[in-house]
Structures are given as structure tokens and as C-alpha cells.
């Protein structure tokens, strides 16, 4: 059988990308499996209610619905419209607190 020694093996590029999870994914998965993510979500929910963020989002939703009319808005619409505003208005203190918690988790999980 003739083969070219110099010919490199066909790269399984696509397959590789699917198989190799990024660091972010690994951390995320570890956190979900250990239940830490759920705890952090609870903490986040609490903080966002406390600082009035949730109320502000509610108000934004109401304003949007009022503008468009109750029958012309779907949940998907709202999610698409509100998400960027929501992400942008998270207080820094909350971000910091969560990052510290994640860091602590990483240390304890020896990643």
C-alpha cells in the first residue's frame, strides 16, 4: 500500500473542539455538580432583591409592556430586551462578593 510518510494525519479539528472543554466550562460543571452553583444562585437572588435590582427590572418590564401593549409581548421578548439592561446594572459589590466566593470554591476544590 502506497502512503506518503510526509503526509500529516487528518486533523480531527471539529471533534477536538467538542471534546476539550474550556476552563470556564470545567469550573461551571464542577460547581453545578457539587451544588455550589445553586447556593451561589440563591445568594445572588437574595442580594439582587435587597438592593432593589429586582424591583427595577420589574418596573422596566412593566414600562415595556405598557409601551407595546399587553397582547403584543411574549416572555421571550422581555428576556431579550431586559437582559442587557439587567446585566449592565448589577452593583459592583455584588459582583465582587460572588467572585470571592467562586475563588474560595476553586481553592477548596483544588482546581
Amino acid at each position, binding site marked *: 500500500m502506497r502512503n506518503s510518510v510526509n503526509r500529516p494525519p487528518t486533523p480531527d479539528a471539529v471533534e477536538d473542539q*467538542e471534546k476539550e472543554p474550556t476552563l470556564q466550562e470545567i469550573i*461551571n*460543571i464542577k460547581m*453545578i*455538580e457539587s451544588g455550589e452553583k445553586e447556593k451561589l444562585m*440563591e445568594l445572588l437572588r437574595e*442580594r439582587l432583591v*435587597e*438592593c*432593589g*435590582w429586582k424591583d*427595577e427590572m420589574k418596573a422596566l418590564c412593566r414600562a415595556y409592556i405598557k409601551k407595546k401593549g399587553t397582547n403584543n409581548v*411574549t*416572555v*421571550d421578548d422581555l*428576556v431579550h430586551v431586559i437582559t442587557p439592561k439587567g446585566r*449592565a*446594572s*448589577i*452593583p*459592583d*459589590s*455584588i459582583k465582587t462578593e460572588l467572585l470571592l466566593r467562586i475563588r474560595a470554591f476553586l481553592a477548596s476544590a483544588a482546581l
Partner: protein
Amino acid sequence: MMSRNSMYTNPKPCKHLADYKLRHGLSGYNLLQEQIRTTPSGKSSVKNHQTEIPRCCFCNGYQKRLYLCLICSSISCSSHTLLHSQCENGHDIAVDIERSELYCVLCCDQVYDPDFDKIVMLKHLMDLPRSGNGVDVSAGRRSSKRRRLCSALELDLKKTKQLVSMRDLRAKSCYPLGLRGLNNLGSTCFMNSVLQALLHAPPFRNYFLTGQRNHEVCRKRSSDRLCLLCDIYVFFSAVFSGDRTPYSPAQLLYSWWQHSANLASYEQQDAHEFFISVLDGIHENGVKARSPIKDTGECHCVAHRVFSGQLRSDVTCMSCGYTSTTYDPFMDISLNLDTGNCPSTDLANKSLKPSDNTYVSTLLGCLDLFTKPEKLGSDQKFFCENCQERQDSVKQMSIKRLPLVLCLHIKRFEHFPVRRMSRKIDRYMQFPFCLDMNPYLSSSVVRNRFGNRMFAFEGDELDTSTEFEIFAVVTHSGTLDSGHYVTYLHLKDQWYKCDDAWITAVEEEVVRASQCYMLFYAQKMLYYKANEDLVCQPVSPRADPFLPIAGCC
């Protein structure tokens, strides 16, 4: 759509949900029930038995909203639900895994089905500890609310003609009946202001005017003792006589002093304290005169019949979800001012600095604050019956039963026992003239704990009116030690300022801008009925402390 209790009318299912129900009935829901995981905080999510994290079957993603198909249990993310529906015909209805909420793929929107919510709620109830939970599935009982309202109307309808005939021929002003200045007897504006409000509380007023208080046969008076109820009756008669010259409620003041000896002095007193004290006096007088209270435990003195409601307090254990519920009566509700301050820092993109607080306090904000779940501090750990130990817990207040007349007291006087000083909070608070108390009822508050569920909770009183109209505002100006109370009355679509002996008609803007201390709201029906009874008369040529109004009536 804007029916009175629109919260209780379930939204109609979309075509696709209706189709699904026809074909599959409740089987999909029932299978799902086992996979629902609930938390003590009221959240429910779908977690199947796989140890792996749920992923979209198309893109393997796990970070977007994930939806579980009710028919084949395959999971798609929000971007791929439509794809799934296209691949499998009829797979249109899914469940949001995180929230246990129904979603129609073709409508791209959340949909509601009471049957589904019932199954979710049943799971909650199964998971909650046995010995007591904040939720009862008993059918909403038709409470005595209907009866109370009817008896209130009776107070109204009886002998309205008698009211009209009480008109004194001397009275010729254009003001409604029952509007009369009250002389200040020495820092008694606190009393005058509250009396003006009581004079126009519909069922209260009618009780005294329709002769239900028969003071001729009052035993106390016949033995020459003071009777607060009789004195109030005399007071009402005098004010509604039609005579417009300012009246001196000296007898009433003296009678009240006898009852509340600790408050008897010529010093300025607190109007709210006076209000509570007077109601208490009426209750005491009434209780002795009447037959024993029936088994319902409700008192039938006029003070309770008009002003008393019931508060519900829920304390929930954060570990297991066990909720301890208690009910307490109230004659009024004292509210803290909502200042818009939060424990953590202000929102990132707000340009306001903490010192630059332009947040306006509102009555609805105060009521929200009152019914907000409150985390009890670590020094107030609640002993959970279920866990058998002290746990962190959350407390939430709500209104179980509304009174006929709702008195809301704004806490403007702050006392610091440690520093031994007190101060007054002058902060402006905006208040509405029409108030719907629905969101603050126990049924609404408890319902909200479990998310957006179409489910009838205990005591959902579908025939109860929650709409109130304002009829009196007691305002305070000045400092803690030296201030002045003024009452604004809302009669027949006109506002009147009652400043001791001086009564003037004012524009509603004046009232809106005032610094309210006590707000009096009456059930809408009672308010409008009461206003019909007030009769207007032609203009008076007499000089009296009223400023003449051109073109009234």
C-alpha cells in the same frame, strides 16, 4: 378584563396548549411531578434523575434557559425549542426547568394552566413539613365578610330620612352636613383633627346619627356617671345639627380624660394615640352594655365593627420551609416610611449619590415595605417545630381581613431610647385618593411566594371588595414638641381643610402636597353611599368663620 379581582381569572390557554390538553390530559403533568424539586423559599424546578447537568440536545449548551418537552422529555435551550417542535410534530408544550413554568414553543411565550400549577403546588405541600405550613388547600370559604358588609349597609340605609330631618333651620351655608369647626381648648388640635375624621367615617357616623346609640336609656348617665359613648353621641348630634358656629367639645374631652388618665393634661398629645385611646374607650363602654361576644371571637362594639381587621404573620424556617402562622386583630396599621435605601450599595448605573436621594416615598411603597419578607436577625432565631432547633427564618406580614374603614398611620416620630431623644421625620409621602388593597392581602402575598401560580389559596375571598376611597387626612406640621394638626376631609368631591375652628374649601393639590400623618380610607361602596346622604343647602348671609365660596353647589 379589568374585573375587580382580575388576578383570579385565569388567562385563556393558547391553541397549542388546548390541543395538548385534549390529546394528553394530565398524564404529562403527573409524570413530571416526581421530578419537581422544591425549596423552602417557594421555588420549584425540574430535576430529573440524571447525575449530569441538563444540556440542550441540539447544541449541548447548558447556560441558557432550558425547556423540557412534556411529551418526549427532551431538553432544548431557548434558541432550539422551535427546532425541536419542527422535528417532532405536536411537541409544542415544554416546561422551563429552572422555574417549573409552562412554555408554548410556537407562541414563544409563557402559558398558564391551573391544572399544572395545582400539581406543582401539591408537590410543594407534600414536601413541606406536615405539622403546619403557610398554605392550606381548603376551599376559600365565604367568610363573614359578606355579612359584615351587609350589616354596614344596614347602618347606612336605616333612617336616612331621619338624618335629613335633623337639619337645623339656622343652617344655611352651602357646605355639606356635618361640617363644623371645633374650638381649640388648649393644645387640643390633636383631638379635633381625629374627631373630624371620625365624624365622617361612614359606618361610624351612621351608627351615632341613626339613633342606634340610645343615650336616654344609658345606665351610666342615669346614675350620673360619665359615658364616653353618650358624649360622642351628643357630639355627633351637635356637629350634624346644622349649626355652623364652632363647637367646643369640652364634655367629650373631659370624658376622654377620665378614660385615659395618663394622657390627661394640657400638653400637646399625639393624634394617633388619641385615636387608639378613643376606640379603646368605646370598646370598653360597649362591651359592658352588650351581650357577650359570640363564638367567632369578634367584638361587636361600633369601634371594632368599623375599624377592626386582621393581620396575618408568617414566620418561615429557612432550612425546612416550615411556616408558623399567627393572626392578630388590628384597629389601624402603623407604617414605616419607605426611603428607598437598601442595605448594599446603590445600583451601579444610577447617577444618584446616597446623599442626593431624590426617591419619593409613597403609600404603596410603605405598604410594600410592610408586607415584604423580612429576614430575622441571628439574634432572633426562630425555634422551628419541625427541625426542633433554632433556625434562621423569614417573617412576612399580610392582611387577612380588611376593615370597613382603614386607618393608616405613618410613623413620623422616631424615638431613640438609648440616646434619650426623639425626632420627627418630615419626609414627604405621596398617597393616592383611591387605594386597592388587593396586593397586600394574605391571599395575594402567600400566592406570590410560590411564583406565578394559578392556584386558589386559603381564604381567597372572591367576593370581597378591596377598593377604598380616602375621606380624611390628618396632617402634622412643626416639630415633635410644638406642632399643629390639621385635617382634610373629602366630602362630595370637594376637599375641606379643618383647622380647629376654621373650615375652608381647598383644592385637591393642597391635600396631595400636605404632610400626611394618618390616612383614613373607607370601602368604596360605603364612601359613595355616605356621600349621597349629605345634603347641601343654600348660601348663608351670616358671617361665620367660613370663607365664602362663589358658585358652589
